[in-house]
């Protein structure tokens, strides 16, 4: 698989790998994908009192472009409000990383991970 420089960079030096403590204030988690499909992404966001995403972490089981897509997303969501984060589209991710057509599903999964993390945040904080 011939990958772009950007995919290789994120793959070699993934940003924001890790996990937050489960009970940390403002932390929400989105986990998408399935082992049988060859990729699982876990995206965690830490949202401040002002509704801005202060920090993000990920762990991904998947191919190089799945790892790169999730790594990129952790960079992009930081500093955004949760509504702004939801505006990140898979096409932007695919374009930024110059994903080959057979890897577009990785960018879709990354977008889904953001949605899942935001949904988890809203569920926890709606009360």
């Amino acid at each position: 698989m011939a990958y772009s420089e950007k995919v290789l960079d994120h793959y070699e030096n993934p940003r924001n790998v890790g996990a937050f403590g489960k009970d940390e204030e403002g932390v929400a988690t989105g986990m998408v994908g399935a082992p049988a499909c060859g990729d699982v992404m876990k995206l965690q966001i830490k949202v401040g009192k002002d509704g801005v995403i202060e920090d993000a972490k990920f762990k991904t089981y998947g191919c190089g472009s799945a790892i790169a897509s999730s790594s990129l997303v952790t960079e992009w969501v930081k500093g955004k409000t949760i509504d702004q984060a939801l505006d990140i589209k898979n096409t932007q991710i695919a374009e930024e990383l110059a994903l080959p057509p057979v890897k577009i599903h990785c960018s879709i999964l990354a977008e889904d991970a953001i949605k899942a993390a935001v949904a988890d945040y809203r569920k926890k904080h709606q009360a």
Partner: protein
Amino acid sequence: MLKFPIYLDYSATTPVDPRVAAKMIPWLTEHFGNPASRSHAYGWEAEQAVEEAREQVAALVNADAKEIIWTSGATESNNLAIKGAAHFYQGKGKHVITVKTEHKAVLDTVRELEREGFEATYLDVQENGLIDLEVLKAAIRPDTILISVMFVNNEVGVVQPIAEIGELCREKGIIFHVDAAQATGKVDIDLEKLKVDLMSFSAHKTYGPKGVGALYVRRKPRVRLEAQMHGGGHERGLRSGTLATHQIVGMGEAFRLAREEMTEENARIRKLRDKLLNGLTDIEATFVNGDVEQRVPHNLNISFAYVEGESLIMAIKDIAVSSGSACTSASLEPSYVLRALGRNDELAHSSIRFSIGRFTTEEEVDFTIDLLHKKIGKLRELSPLWDMYKEGIDLDTVQWAAH
């Protein structure tokens, strides 16, 4: 001094042994005659070289040279054997049996027969990759005319019970074809003892050139085939086409070397493979695919749980290996062979086939073990599945959002 990437994909293809290449070259430049030319010395010497090579190929498998037909490779041999026998014997019956873990050159050929109106049974294998003889017996019908089983599986390296299947076929009067592309030089093949009617060979899996192979066609009792390639009537009418003298000479020399050196070579390779096996199964949550005992000495197929195959291949780009992962294939389906062994998709995705060979050194094996330890560790740090495994969560009980 290590040369990168380290080649550990000898089951895909082997380099041409320099001794083989040296033998081939004069047959391209000086001795270029057509072996079918009967009217001059150029033709005679080429024919002599082709016949010498035929003896060398026959000698490795203890057959008669007259039973060897030159082809372009094992794919063509499989096509000629399966279609040729099915077409010739279709008056006797229309049923063919093969195995789910066969190479595509066999499976797709049998599929083609189905399109022509034949019926086919694709046998399941056991978890160790071997076929169960009782399952085979149960699949045989009165109208079964052909059974095709590979000698050595290309992905997991298991050795099927060819001798026993041969007895069964002979007893029932069924033609038995064996794809031996992965077996030559790895396991002893004695066609005087084995009751095999047709056997396919490839040169490039045994340190010969690509583009040449052979089909063994038994003479006693005689096995008949319908030709698939028509033309000048070469190879007793079974396979027309001008013989590629240099390729054939290369295959002959490669098989001669295999016969002379295989005992010693396999002992050395087995030691290296076992070192690799021990060094890698040291890593937590690894699974060897395929039977460990009934296996060729140079193959090791391992699944590294909670690590995805393509990212693993990227991480270990200093070594050249194959993966059972969907992501490395055009089809996006994980290895059908590992699926047939009952491996779930996740383990099929994270499998790596290491195949070592004549030019593999101990230093290369040591490097590989060390590299895998480092990279598996790194990828598992990245893997949410690894965390869950460490927390004691059974991944099979998790409701995944499949996509």
